[in-house]
């Protein structure tokens, strides 16, 4: 039997509950449907902060983490329900507010929700079940061990007694939460591993699901911002007289989101800490009026900000460089810096010697541009800051971090900050960075009214926090028998390097060199779906395809050969992957895609990658029509350990693969004189229905291994498989993203001669 430790006790829980912090219900005056989503459960008994049971046996489970489309609002409660042994039909799910006293790691990021909360969720269900059994044992005067629970029914076979959860809920809620509790044998799972529909599906298809922009309250003021039009400039002065004369506009004033001495947390990235705010009585009037504000901007000198690390602690000083950027010069700078002196990160064997002795050497260079996350729901937040409380409602991936930032900025204690999470209308990493939540709070505190801050699409796209620009140089050496004997990767970017030195093929090649470099910039960047991996996975897999071709080997067999070496005789000790599982997804995709056969008129490419604790392999089948790829099919093979919710897992892999393919084909954010050149969906290209793969077929490795996430792992390998299929269809290798833009002609040729 597996036992898990519990981290809750009744005393701490009741304390929080009394303060309203553990409440599953929003006590709020809504115009919207949110009140309906979280009804008052007057007669419900709280078992441990995750679970409330009413006297009729209806079980309400709080889903702790932000729901951003990864479907944790269904899959996390499924894990709780499994251990509770409740019939899933008797479960109602609500979004928990931020409460670090009860919930652990309330973050939507890094594909870690299931991976890192698996034990806590099982604990929540198992402790509640234990307490219900204890209550029944006392009521019936029998031993707890003689009681069984099945699908919401508590039974004692010998006496024939049975009761529903509702009958025991009150008594159970008064018991101590056990310090340690047994969890189920995974072979006995009835809810986990069985497809359960998205709990918010019926609300989503009827327009009732509540996102941040759907928060309306009485006396609420609308607000938006005007930010510097270019990176490298700041506000000098502004004239808002025209806007202020317009009907419905209340005020225009500057704010400072993060003062210079502010101790920023890791997620307080913000290129524009000083903004102009405009408030008024409707969204449309503000949209019209903000265009009339005449502002003067001036270049800034380098300045220092204080930034804490991911784990908190003392902040370090960081310098924000001055200067006005241009995409063309950035490509040139990447090429130059790559050829300068990069930092060695890992070296195995003697790469120099091996390359000099190699029978064949191949070297290739890859690049990728800035990307705007551009979730369809633009940045927004609701704030109601009064003298003693700050109520904040909206889409945020990092409520734990932003609670600290808001408290510091408003001069309040953590206990005074109440963050409620709506569904998030897409984030892809952008809504990890919650400056917009702080801005809403600062505005509300200043005007002493509830406020809904909204960004227009143009604001959202031009505000920075982009996927960094990346560049990677690869070199491989084969011996006379076409064995890979030397491998060199040198990767960098603006402003971060995407390199993961200990990932494959590290560990599978005797002579290996990994190097890294960076270039500073005042253009802010931020984690974007599968940070760094979104580039490295794609280009590494495209390069290996060329190496396999040079070796005259089948691309899957070539990789399996390398994994075989990494399994039997690994090089080095710090290899960040399990070669058996890696090989496993390749073998699965080989079988499921009937690799080696060809469909008439279609060309195929393959790739596999490991990141964020899960393994994904893809085969892409496509043909070219009018110089554009028609992608008829994408096959995906995934190993994420136990598949908690198959239908949702499949959805994630399908979407992640298409998202990767779409960005690699079409998306790019460019800069001219510091100004983002794409401002909306008319010029920033995202993959659309007519260009999307016609079909995505998903397969999962059957596994009893601890479950891991799926938000990010499918993104990169799909790009690799796409690039390799494009080569087969066109005879041309694709090195520079986005593939449908001629980056070489537009940026690389002229700049190398500068």
């Amino acid at each position, binding site marked *: 039997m597996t036992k898990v430790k519990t981290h809750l006790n009744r005393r701490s829980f009741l304390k929080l509950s009394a303060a309203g912090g553990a409440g599953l219900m929003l006590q709020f005056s809504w115009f919207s449907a949110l009140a309906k989503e979280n009804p008052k459960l007057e007669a419900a008994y709280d078992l441990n902060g995750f679970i409330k049971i009413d006297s009729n046996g209806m079980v309400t489970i709080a889903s702790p983490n932000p729901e951003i489309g990864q479907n944790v609002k269904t899959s996390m409660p499924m894990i709780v329900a499994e251990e509770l042994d409740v019939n899933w039909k008797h479960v109602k799910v609500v979004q928990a507010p931020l409460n670090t006293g009860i919930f652990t790691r309330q973050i939507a990021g890094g594909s870690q929700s299931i991976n890192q909360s698996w034990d806590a969720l099982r604990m929540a269900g198992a402790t509640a079940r234990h307490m219900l059994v204890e209550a029944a044992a006392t009521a019936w005067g029998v031993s707890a061990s003689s009681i069984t629970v099945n699908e919401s029914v508590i039974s004692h076979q010998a006496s024939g007694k049975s009761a529903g959860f509702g009958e025991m809920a009150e008594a159970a809620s008064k018991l101590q939460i056990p310090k340690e509790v047994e969890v189920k044998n995974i072979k006995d799972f009835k809810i986990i591993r069985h497809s359960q529909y998205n709990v918010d599906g019926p609300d989503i*298809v*009827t*327009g009732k699901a509540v996102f941040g922009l759907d928060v309306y309250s009485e006396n609420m003021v609308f607000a938006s911002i005007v930010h510097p039009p270019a990176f490298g400039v700041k506000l000098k002065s502004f004239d808002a007289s025209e806007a202020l004369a317009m009907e419905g506009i209340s005020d225009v004033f500057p704010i400072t989101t993060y003062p210079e001495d502010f101790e920023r947390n890791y997620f307080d990235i913000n290129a524009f800490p000083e903004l102009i705010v405009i408030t008024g009585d*409707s969204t449309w009037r503000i949209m019209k009026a903000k265009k009339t504000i005449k502002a003067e901007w001036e270049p800034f000198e380098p300045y220092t900000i204080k930034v804490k690390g991911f784990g908190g602690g003392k902040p370090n000083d960081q310098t924000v460089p001055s200067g006005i950027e241009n995409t063309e010069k950035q490509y040139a700078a990447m090429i130059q810096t790559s050829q300068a002196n990069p930092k060695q990160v890992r070296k195995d064997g003697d790469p120099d010697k091996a390359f000099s002795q190699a029978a064949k050497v191949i070297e290739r260079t890859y690049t990728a541009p800035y990307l705007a996350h551009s979730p369809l729901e633009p940045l927004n937040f609701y704030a109601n800051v009064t003298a003693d409380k700050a109520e904040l409602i909206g889409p945020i991936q990092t409520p734990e971090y932003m609670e600290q930032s808001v408290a510091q900025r408003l001069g309040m204690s953590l206990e005074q900050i109440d963050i409620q999470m709506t569904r998030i*209308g*897409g984030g892809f990493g952008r809504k990890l960075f919650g400056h917009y939540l702080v801005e809403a709070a600062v505005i509300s505190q200043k005007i002493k009214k509830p406020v809904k801050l909204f960004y227009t699409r143009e604001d959202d796209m031009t505000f920075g926090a982009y996927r960094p620009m990346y560049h990677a140089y690869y070199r491989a050496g084969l011996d006379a028998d076409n064995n890979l004997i030397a491998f060199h990767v040198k990767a960098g970017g603006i402003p971060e390097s995407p390199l993961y030195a200990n990932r494959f093929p590290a560990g599978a090649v005797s002579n290996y060199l990994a190097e890294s470099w960076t270039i500073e910039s005042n253009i802010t960047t931020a984690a974007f779906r599968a940070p760094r991996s979104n580039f490295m996975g794609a280009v590494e897999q495209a390069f290996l395809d060329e190496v396999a071709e040079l070796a005259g080997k089948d691309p899957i067999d070539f990789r399996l050969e390398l994994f075989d070496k990494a399994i039997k005789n690994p090089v080095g000790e710090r290899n960040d992957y399990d070669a058996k599982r890696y090989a496993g997804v390749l073998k699965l995709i080989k079988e499921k895609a009937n690799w080696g056969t060809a469909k008439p008129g279609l060309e195929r490419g393959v790739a596999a990658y490991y990141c964020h604790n899960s393994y994904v392999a893809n085969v892409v089948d496509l043909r070219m029509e009018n110089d554009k790829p028609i992608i008829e099919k994408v096959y995906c093979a995934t190993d994420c350990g136990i598949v908690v919710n198959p239908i949702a897992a499949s959805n994630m892999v399908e979407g992640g693969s298409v998202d990767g393919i779409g960005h690699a084909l079409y998306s790019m954010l460019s800069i001219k004189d510091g100004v983002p050149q794409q401002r909306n969906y008319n010029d920033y290209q995202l993959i659309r*229905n007519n260009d999307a793969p016609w079909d995505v077929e998903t397969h999962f490795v059957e596994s009893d291994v601890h479950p891991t996430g799926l938000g990010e792992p499918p993104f990169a390998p799909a790009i690799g498989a796409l690039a390799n299929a494009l080569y087969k269809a066109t005879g041309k290798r694709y090195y520079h993203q986005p593939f449908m833009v001629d980056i070489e002609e537009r940026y690389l040729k002229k700049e190398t001669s500068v």
Partner: protein
Amino acid sequence: MARYTINVNGESKQVDVDSDTPILWVLRDNLHLLGTKYGCGIAHCGVCTIHLDGDAVRSCAYPISAVGDKKIVTIEGLSENGDHPVQKAWLEHDVPQCGYCQAGQIMTASSLLDQNPNPTDDEIRRAMNGNICRCATYTRINRAIKSAAKDL
């Protein structure tokens, strides 16, 4: 400011707004019908799609002054109990991820099926091309439309 009487989901509504206000913001800010979403404001993403006399229209770029007596239907009014064949198919295929674009997708899809009850795969892809899904649920969207077409 001007007063307009518009027909929304079969009901007559009076609103007092600037004449250039897009239908989207009348629905959201004035009528608190929040199922219709804002995405781009320039009719390029489709999340604000409504029906205007049955046609799929981007409400973010359609001024209230041009509505006249045309009938507006929003996601809230597409069916009485959320049981339009397209809505049912969306649930059957578990289409949504983040869900933000799906009301717009459903409004475009239901308008398509009204006008073409048995669309080919290619017709579906072309009809749906104006609706971005940033989570890229396109394959499920298209499968759900095929299912709904069978149920019509």
